[in-house]
Structures are given as structure tokens and as C-alpha cells.
């Protein structure tokens, strides 16, 4: 890789109209770790310029699609024209496993008010009420969630009032999300909106008590490809009691009961850090940033949990599980390294995966040449230490910030101040996240909200062995002769979490970077020296 990242950056933004070029230049940085641990500032969580061809989606996608969608027994009704509900119908492949065949599972259903011109003109509240009633009559759920789409906000339907009214009428929990697609600048706004409403309307409603010693919640794990199943199994083997996952393989009751846990684990910092903070303030539950993507990261995360609880028996169990799993991982690593060592990868996806998956590539001996988030914020790149310096712009101001106070009866500090101070070791990431950039090699390109133009130029210049992105990018990248791994949907594979997932991922990447097809792009006659045109032969 003989490219000077600074030169590449200049070249990439040169084509843009001047103002746009200036903006993009602030969203592209070259990593450099200062002696004090500082990293360059990146502009993030800002608007995508119209016309740019962005990877990003909308607030509705972040709220309904990402955070609430994976939960199997909250019945989701999308209030709007048919499309928004249709496109989010099963497409994120959140796996779920109800305890029995008779337990509710609404994941396969797509509900919509299918708004027509009539409701756009005269208002849709009446139809929404009727739809909630009809949904109740068919499904008899414990909870119904209503999601607003773009026109709903504009015509002024009060979805929250409708939800309150129907909650009273039906005697079940009904709550709504003002997650119109135009809110914020990306899916990220929707995550925040989803966190807020779950916190206000669900958390703390179920007081079931637990005898278990080590109770946790897993925040920001959505069980794509079965990742949550793998992690649940690890917890079980270590003797850690999982109360609720937000929201992969989850159900309503467990979420409502999650305030009883003694620790929150934050997997996807971007989509769920709000919840961790709010639960800490209201119920006194501390949180830890963990990462179950990558074998070493999984081992480290389990040890961090054991360290938090500071229990000899738990620590021993964790070590036993790690000792059981690592030999298999080592064998797989050694095998794939013989074919993958030194190959290069680029990751442009999501709000945490572009960071987490770097670990797996490094474990295979591969090098990261560029990375960036689709909808991350500065703290996801630079670490939470920059939070006080992030300016809140007009787009973020529109998202509600809930003021949270300690619960009068249920706030229970889990740790003494002294113990908290002990846990403040940066390695532990106790109530902290160091971000993507400090863990990257100096001189690597980091690009926020990468555009299609930048994607093409990067690939042309660096010719990486593999590019990681989403469905919209996949086939454009592959047309360039470079394999593209989807890190939203996992290309319908997985799981990639935990030790078992790491092995799956090594094998998958090994397959992709060593596929024969990439060497067969030219037909035999396309590699010959130019020949005289043969006489035409009559054809069909």
C-alpha cells in the first residue's frame, strides 16, 4: 500500500462543489495517535448533502428497524403509507426463539395503517385507533408500539394521544414513537427516539425479583444471524444471569424487568448508550462497554464482567469457558492465516461494527486500510472523552433529551464510590468507550458517511482484498472485482459473535478473499493480442 492517505483524501474531495468539498474534508481524517492518547477530530453526525449517494437511511429505520423490531412480542404498527412497513418486513433478519410454540411471535408480521390520500387530507388518527383495535382483536398482545412515518408528523396526527387513549381502552401497554424519517440526519436519531420511549413506557414495569448473583442486561445486541444466541450460551456457561437483551431475541416482560439487573453491558454504543446512561441515573445500574465480536475481544469482555462482580468463583468459571473455547479458535486462526495474512480490508458500516469487526480481521492477520461509520457520532470515533466538546446542532436539538432523576424507591447504587474508583481503569472501559480511532494504525483513513464516489475512488486506489458495507454497496463493489461482505445482514450467514462466531467469520472471509471467480473475469479471447475482425456469421 504505497498511498499517502493525505493525498488520497485531497484527491477524493477534489471533484466536489467547493462547499461540499470543504464539508467532506472535515469528515475524512487520517489517524494519528498523539502521545497523550489524542486522535484527530472528525466531523460526524451531520447532514448528508442532497445528491451525494449516501449509505444512510432514516430515523424510522433506526427506531423501528433497528431497536424495536427485534423484539418478538411487542406488536409493531406502522402509521403511514404502506411502503415504510413493507420495507422493514423481516429484512433485518433478527432471529428470535420463543420459549414454546404457543408463545407469541410477531416478527413475521408486518402491520400498517396503509394511509391513503383521504387520511393525508383529513387526518389519520381515526384510522390509527381502528387499526390498533383490529390488531388487538387478532393478536391479543401485551404491548403495541406505533411508529410515525414522514407524513404523520406533517399532518399533525397526535400518535401519543391515540396511544394513551387505546392503552386505557384495551388495558394493555400502548406507546408511540415520533420517528418520522426526516428527524435527525440518519438512523441514529431513531435509535435515540426508541431508547427514550422504551425507557419511559416499558422499563421498570415488571418487578419480578431474581435470586441470582450476577444479573446483567445486554444492550445493543440485535441477534442478527444468531449472535445473541451465542452470547446467551456463554453467559449461561459462566453462570451469568441475563435479564434482558435490547433487543435481540427479547420479549416485553424481560425488558420491563431489566431495571433489576446489577450491570448493563453495552455492545453497540451508538444505538443504545442513552439507555445505559438513563438506567444508571434512575436505577443506579452501572454499565460496561464490551464487545463480543472477535475471540480475544470476547475473552476480554467476559473477564471484564467477572472483574466488575469481583467474584472468585465467577472469575474461575470465565477462565474455564475461555480455556475450553480458545484452542478451537487458535486452530482456525492458524489455518486461515496461511491464506489471509497480509491481505487488506476496508469497513464502512453502521455505528459500531466498523470498529468491532476490525478485531476479527486483525485476528486473521489482515490489515485495515480504511474504515468509517454510516451514522456514528464523534464519540464513536474519538471516544466518550470528547462528549463535552460536541456542539449540539439544530438536527440533534430536535431529538428529545429526557431529564432523568433517581427513582425515589428503586434507585440502588450497585457500587461504592471506592469500588467505582477502582474500576476506572481505562482498559476496563467502565462507563466509557474509547472509540474506533485510538485502536487504529497511524496513517489509516477514517471516513464518516462515505459517499459512493469516495467508495469507488478508495477501491480503485487501494484495491483492498475485501470491502465491508451493506446491501446497497455490495454489488457495486463486487462489479469492481472486489468481494464485499455485508456487515448489516452478514450475507445471510453468521453467527459471528463469540468464539464460535469468530471461527465462522474467519472461514467466511477466507472463502471470500480466495474465491476463484475473481481471477476468471477476463475471457480467454479478451487476453489475446488484437486480432483482425472475422467475417460475420449469420446468427439467430
Amino acid at each position, binding site marked *: 500500500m504505497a498511498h499517502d492517505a493525505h493525498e488520497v483524501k485531497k484527491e477524493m474531495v477534489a471533484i466536489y462543489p467547493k462547499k461540499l468539498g470543504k464539508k467532506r474534508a472535515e469528515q475524512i481524517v487520517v489517524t494519528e495517535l498523539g502521545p497523550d492518547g489524542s486522535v484527530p477530530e472528525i466531523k460526524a453526525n451531520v447532514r448528508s448533502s442532497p445528491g451525494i449517494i449516501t449509505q444512510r*437511511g432514516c430515523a424510522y429505520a433506526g427506531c423501528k428497524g433497528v431497536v424495536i423490531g427485534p423484539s418478538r412480542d411487542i406488536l409493531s404498527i406502522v402509521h403511514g403509507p404502506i411502503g415504510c412497513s413493507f420495507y422493514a418486513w423481516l429484512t433485518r433478519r433478527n432471529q428470535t426463539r420463543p420459549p414454546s410454540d404457543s408463545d407469541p411471535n410477531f416478527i413475521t408480521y408486518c402491520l400498517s395503517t396503509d394511509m391513503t390520500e383521504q387520511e393525508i387530507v383529513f387526518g389519520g388518527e381515526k384510522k390509527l385507533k381502528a387499526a390498533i383495535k383490529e390488531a388487538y382483536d387478532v393478536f391479543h398482545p401485551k404491548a403495541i408500539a406505533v411508529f410515525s412515518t414522514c407524513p404523520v408528523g406533517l399532518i399533525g396526527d397526535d400518535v401519543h394521544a391515540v396511544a394513551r387513549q387505546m392503552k386505557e381502552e384495551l388495558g394493555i401497554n400502548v406507546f408511540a414513537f415520533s420517528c418520522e424519517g426526516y428527524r435527525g440526519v440518519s438512523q441514529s436519531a431513531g435509535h435515540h427516539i426508541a431508547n427514550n420511549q422504551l425507557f419511559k413506557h416499558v422499563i421498570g414495569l415488571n418487578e419480578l425479583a431474581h435470586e441470582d448473583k450476577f444479573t446483567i442486561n445486554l444492550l445493543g445486541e440485535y441477534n442478527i444471524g444468531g449472535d445473541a444466541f451465542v452470547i446467551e450460551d456463554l453467559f449461561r456457561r459462566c453462570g451469568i444471569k441475563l435479564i434482558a437483551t435490547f433487543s435481540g431475541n427479547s420479549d416485553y416482560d424481560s425488558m420491563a424487568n431489566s431495571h433489576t439487573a446489577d450491570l448493563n453491558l453495552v455492545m453497540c454504543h451508538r444505538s443504545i448508550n442513552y439507555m445505559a446512561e438513563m438506567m444508571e441515573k434512575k436505577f443506579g445500574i452501572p454499565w460496561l462497554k464490551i464487545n463480543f465480536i472477535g475471540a480475544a475481544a470476547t475473552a476480554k469482555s467476559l473477564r471484564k464482567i467477572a472483574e466488575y462482580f469481583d467474584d472468585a468463583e465467577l472469575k474461575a468459571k470465565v477462565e474455564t469457558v475461555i480455556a475450553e473455547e480458545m484452542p478451537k479458535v487458535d486452530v482456525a486462526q492458524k489455518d486461515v492465516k496461511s491464506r489471509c495474512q497480509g491481505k487488506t480490508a476496508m469497513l464502512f458500516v453502521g455505528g459500531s461494527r466498523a470498529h468491532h469487526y476490525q478485531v476479527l480481521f486483525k485476528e486473521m492477520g489482515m490489515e485495515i486500510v480504511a474504515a468509517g461509520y454510516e451514522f456514528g457520532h464523534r464519540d464513536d470515533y474519538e471516544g466518550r472523552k470528547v462528549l463535552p466538546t460536541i456542539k449540539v446542532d439544530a438536527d440533534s436539538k430536535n431529538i428529545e433529551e429526557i431529564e432523568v432523576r433517581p427513582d425515589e424507591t428503586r434507585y440502588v447504587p450497585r457500587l461504592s464510590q471506592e469500588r467505582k474508583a477502582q474500576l476506572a481503569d481505562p482498559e476496563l472501559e467502565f462507563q466509557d468507550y474509547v472509540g474506533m480511532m485510538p485502536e487504529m494504525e497511524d496513517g489509516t483513513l477514517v471516513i464518516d458517511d462515505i459517499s459512493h464516489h469516495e467508495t469507488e475512488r478508495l477501491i480503485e486506489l487501494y484495491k483492498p482484498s475485501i470491502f465491508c458495507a451493506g446491501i446497497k454497496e455490495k454489488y*457495486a463493489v463486487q462489479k469492481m472485482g472486489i468481494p464485499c461482505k455485508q456487515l448489516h445482514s452478514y450475507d445471510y450467514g453468521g453467527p459471528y459473535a463469540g468464539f464460535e462466531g469468530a471461527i465462522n467469520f474467519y472461514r467466511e472471509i477466507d472463502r471470500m478473499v480466495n474465491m476463484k471467480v475473481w481471477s476468471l473475469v477476463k475471457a480467454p479471447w479478451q487476453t489475446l493480442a488484437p486480432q483482425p475482425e472475422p467475417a460475420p456469421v449469420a446468427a439467430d
Partner: protein
Amino acid sequence: MLLRHTTAEVTERTALTINPAKTCQPIGAMYAALGVHGCLPHSHGSQGCCSYHRSTLTRHYKEPVMAATSSFTEGSSVFGGQANLLQAFETIFTVYNPDIVAVHTTCLSETIGDDISQIISKAKADGKIPEGKHAIHANTPSYVGSHITGFANMAKSLVTNFAEGTGEDKKQINLLPGWVEPPDMRELKCLAHRMGVDVIMFPDTSDVLDAPQTGKHELYPKGGATVAQIRSAGDSIGTIGLGHSASTRAASALEEKCEVANEMLELPIGLQATDRLIEAMRVMAGVKVPDIITDERGRLLDMIADMHQYIHGKRVALWGDPDQLVSLCDFLVCLDMKPVYILTGTPSTRFEKRVRAVLGDSVPDVKIRKGSGADMFLMHQWIKQESVDLLIGNTYGKYIARDENIPFVRHGFPILDRVGHAYFPTVGYRGGMYLLEKILNAFMDRQDREALEEKFELTM
């Protein structure tokens, strides 16, 4: 059970759609715009619309689907999207350099009331649309019609923006394919070519959404109707429009604007619908039908005759888009099969009448639903009341197929879990053979899987 909450008992719903059999207008407009050479579709709305449409089309075709968006924020929703669209034009023509930007609206920009014609005029006046380049638009409010309506509106916009009658009589006919797959469009052109008929086809997504692997990504692949071709449609002998719900608007616009007479036909899926297309082309272009086509027809007929025992009398449930459903029913009736449940989420005035006409008295107890309230939840309830032998529809049918153990042939949009639709036609006689093969395999695979050992057949 995957759909464990679905019961046989139907309670009337007036407000709630469960498991829709349609989606919204803009995705159809995006698909149609991809069938124009050098065209970048542009979604005037929130980012999510563009992202969802690109994702769905990409999952269906396993191909790049490039499109831009106006990236509305709360501010644009209050003040209107003009500034966003003007900026988008500047960025798109500078960075991505298309020949055409085809703007479609969304529920958001329609509710706000953005006047796209006016914004395009302003963009032209401000010099944001370079000389020789084009910006066109179609109004595609998501709360009216369905994805088919969006396709029809964008196809019509191609006519109103580009078609011109110069007075010259060109020996060519316009063939509007409707919403069919790239291999279908390729097959239709091949049929015309074999008959010696020059056709102007638009939209034409062949060589766009089935582009070869070359090691290079072409932002604007070699396929797609060119502006010059669409322009010349105003001088053609006549127009054959395929599929009433997808092609009538464009065909009528051509007649109105350029006085090119049109003949509307059902999509040429199956034997008799293809016969009608061949006849129409023969008469309109004044050509003879070559033996190669008659022989192909004979091969399809032969296949039906040979394998009739496996298909006759079978009860079929179908859902999808009106144009496809009418022709599929026509084909199934010709195979002596029984389409018993037929349903589309797309509102259509002629759909039920046409289906009943096609069925004649062959299926007295047929259930037909369209538009509002016609969803796959209802279809599943019908099936639970009395089952069928075969399902034909888009990928979402797989959940019903598995729960009810019913053979399933994927047809329509979207198909997210199989690949054939992107490569093999279902129009024309060859398309009929491909479709019949899939239907036969579905029955025969089931027989092989479930037959008692002593009843397991070597020859079928």
C-alpha cells in the same frame, strides 16, 4: 409455526393491513427510471425512502441500484425541499455526471406540496442542469396507488418529457413492456427481432439490472432506452402497451401527445397471451411470423400436452401485481389448473373483471380481492379455510408455504431468496416453458419427497 397467529376465521378489517401485497409508488418510479440509459433516479424525500428502495431492488436483482436522495431534514419538511433539490442537481451533475436525473416524489414532499416542475425550471435558470443534460420528474405520492402506479407514472413522464412527433414515419413500433424483469425485456426484443420488427422499448432494464461481471462498475451500464429512442417513439407506426396497470398511462400519453395509436394487451405470460402479442406485432408491423417462433410455440404446447397429468385440476393461490395475475390466470386456465384465490394490494378497476373474464366458468368458487384490505394475511386465512395445491407469488409466500406445507413457485416482486427471475424470462413461449418447468418441479419434488417407498417413481 412461523405465522402462528393467523387463524382461519376472517374478521373484517377496515383500518389495518397485515402482511401487504403491494408497496409504495416511489420504488416503481425508481425501477422505471433505471430502464433509461444514463439515468440516475432521484428520490425527493427523506433518506430512508431512497435507502429502502435501493435495498429492496438490490436484494431482488443482486445488482447495483444507484440512486440519489434529497436527504430531507426537519427544516426541509417545514420550509419545503426546493433548496435540497437544487443542491442535489448541482452535486449529482458535478460528481456523478448522468445524462438524465429522473426525480420522483415521496409522501413527504407530496404532503408538503413541493412543485417539482417549478424547481426544475429554477434549476435550469440557475444553470444547475448542464447543457445537453436533462432533469425530469414524476409525481409519485406513496399514499396513492401502489408500486405499479409509480412505475406507470414514471413511464408516462418519459413520454411527456422526451417523445416527439416530427412528422416522419418511422418503420418501428413502440413496445411498452410494463413492469417485467430484465430477461423478459430481453426476450420481448428477441421476439420482435426474430419477426423483423424494429421496436422502441422503454423502460428497458435489460443490460442495466443484469449487467455482466467485468471487473468494472459502470454507474450507467450499457442498457436502458436512450433519450433519442424515446424521442423517436413519437414517429412510430403504433404502440403496443403490455400490462394495463403499468403501461396504459404511457401509451395514452403517446397517443395524446404524438398521435401514435396504441393497442393495450395483457402481459405475454403463457401461451395465449403470447399468441396475442405475436399477432398484434404481425398486424401492426405488417410482417410474417417466422417458423422459429411458431416452432417455439409448438414446443411449449408439446410440453403442456406431455405433462398435463401432473397439473390438471390443481388448485392455485396467487398474489402479486394485477398485470401479472391476469396473465398467470390465463396461463393456468389453459393448463386446466384452477386459480382459486387471487389477490393484489394494488387498487385496480379492471382487475377483477379481467380475472373473471379469463377464468370463465372454470373456477366457480374463486375468491378475488384487490386494493385496500387485500393482504397476505387474508390470503393465508383463505388457505387455512380450504388449502391449495400450489402457491404462486413473491418471496413473502415462503412463510405460508412452510407453515401449510404447500409447493411454492416464486413469481413477482420482490423475490429475495432465489435467483432465476433475474436471468430467465417468464414472457413469451420460452418464458412459458420456464414457468411451466418451475410449476412441474414444484409438484414433482413434492411427490418425490412424500411418496411412500413402494410408490416412488423412477420415470415421471
